């Protein structure tokens, strides 16, 4: 089955491991992620001011591209997901902004030769924006994943980290309960891991504050990592490259400031899925992690 796929710039440039692992897993589950022919950066953050039409254009443009391929688009990065989903909702619910955005998109097409056909009709939110984990649950089915799981992950204590953008705002993301989410728990249960419930799983990692105030991001991330660590997690999974970066890379700093700090590998959930499905470790690519998960995985005979 083919499903249109929007990688977003981070997965395209930086989080190549995430992109690769996710594609491999999809393939193993009989899904072909069909990357949009043309796509641009979604803008990374959804604008919260009421007068911003320009700021949602990037997201809308990508949705319009996607509408040529099908009625869904799958994405992985929490930020992309948040931006696309919310922009889509604006296009569905706000007639005024919808009209303006479509005018811009049309002007846009004229300017760029060769792709003028992408907007045959107004974009009105036809496409459903899916997160990869939703695809696993609703399109593939966790039962199928359970069947396809080859590796024995029992005893591996995994802490699912949701972060902010996947769940909030609830009314718009309609993703899961922002206080007591369940989807990653169900997923982990399907591939046979021990789920570690930890109280900071929906707290912020510091997000883009890493760029401005590194200390703030370190403090936030440390709260999250510590919390998982105290609950005995072996590994944290995430679905956001920024979370991955903050939680993993910043352990470099935590290590220095906290005596007896226990490092925990932070990996993408599709990397873990890949292990479960028996995909070759090379394809999952753990080279970018600061805290290398491989010793742990080797210890559990998973690589």
């Amino acid at each position, binding site marked *: 089955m083919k499903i249109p796929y929007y990688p977003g710039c*981070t997965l395209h440039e930086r989080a190549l491991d995430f992109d690769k692992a996710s594609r491999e897993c999809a393939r193993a589950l009989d899904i072909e992620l069909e990357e949009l022919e043309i796509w641009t950066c979604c803008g990374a953050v959804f604008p*919260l*001011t*009421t007068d911003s039409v320009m700021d949602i254009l990037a997201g809308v443009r990508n949705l319009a591209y996607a509408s040529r391929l099908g009625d869904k688009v799958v994405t992985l990065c929490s930020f992309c997901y948040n931006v696309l989903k919310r922009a889509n909702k604006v296009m569905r619910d706000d007639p005024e902004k919808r009209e303006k955005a479509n005018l811009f998109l049309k002007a846009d097409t004229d300017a760029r030769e060769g792709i003028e056909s992408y907007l045959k009709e107004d974009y009105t939110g036809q496409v459903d924006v899916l997160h990869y984990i939703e695809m696993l649950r609703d399109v593939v089915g966790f039962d199928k994943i359970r069947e396809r799981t080859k590796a024995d992950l029992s005893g591996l204590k995994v802490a699912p980290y949701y972060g902010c953008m996947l769940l*909030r705002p609830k009314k718009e993301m309609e993703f899961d309960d922002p206080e007591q989410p369940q989807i990653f728990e169900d997923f982990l249960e399907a591939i046979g891991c021990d789920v570690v419930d930890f109280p900071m799983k929906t707290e912020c990692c*510091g997000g883009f*504050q890493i760029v401005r105030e590194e200390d*703030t991001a370190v403090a936030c991330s440390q709260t999250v990592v510590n919390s998982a660590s105290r609950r005995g997690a072996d590994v944290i999974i995430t679905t956001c490259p920024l979370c991955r970066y903050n939680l993993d890379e910043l352990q470099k700093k935590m290590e220095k400031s906290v005596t007896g700090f226990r490092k925990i590998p932070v990996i993408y959930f599709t990397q873990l899925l890949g292990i479960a499905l028996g995909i070759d470790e090379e394809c999952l690519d753990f080279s970018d992690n600061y805290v290398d998960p491989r010793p742990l995985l080797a210890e559990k005979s998973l690589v």
Partner: protein
Amino acid sequence: MRLKLSAEVIKGDLVERVAELSGQNLSACYQCGRCSAGCPVVEEMDIVPSEVIRLLQLGQVEPVLDSETIWICASCLQCASRCPRGVEFSSICDALRAIVLRKRLSGSVVDADEVTRTMVSDAPQMGVVGALRKLNG
């Protein structure tokens, strides 16, 4: 100093602007403080979120525009998600930043050059783009 209140002070243009830009009903806030209590970066803030809203309710926009708070907010939406009255402080924050950035008032914005020089090779693009858009307009 004694804060002199009057209809004029409370309903100033700038307050109206914040309400409009953020799409939030500032009067709905009943000062429960939940936004502040749950904010992950509140420790770094000079005026906590509920106090920001209180100041706006009193028509005091200037001190808020000068605050560190609006630049420290990580836009994690926790405040909005838990507010019992459906007030989104995160949006108010965006509006306040927008007012500063659009006027290019002084504010602790991110130095774009600095960022691109030192960080881009390392931090994920989305973080950099996000920071530039939220904190630099």
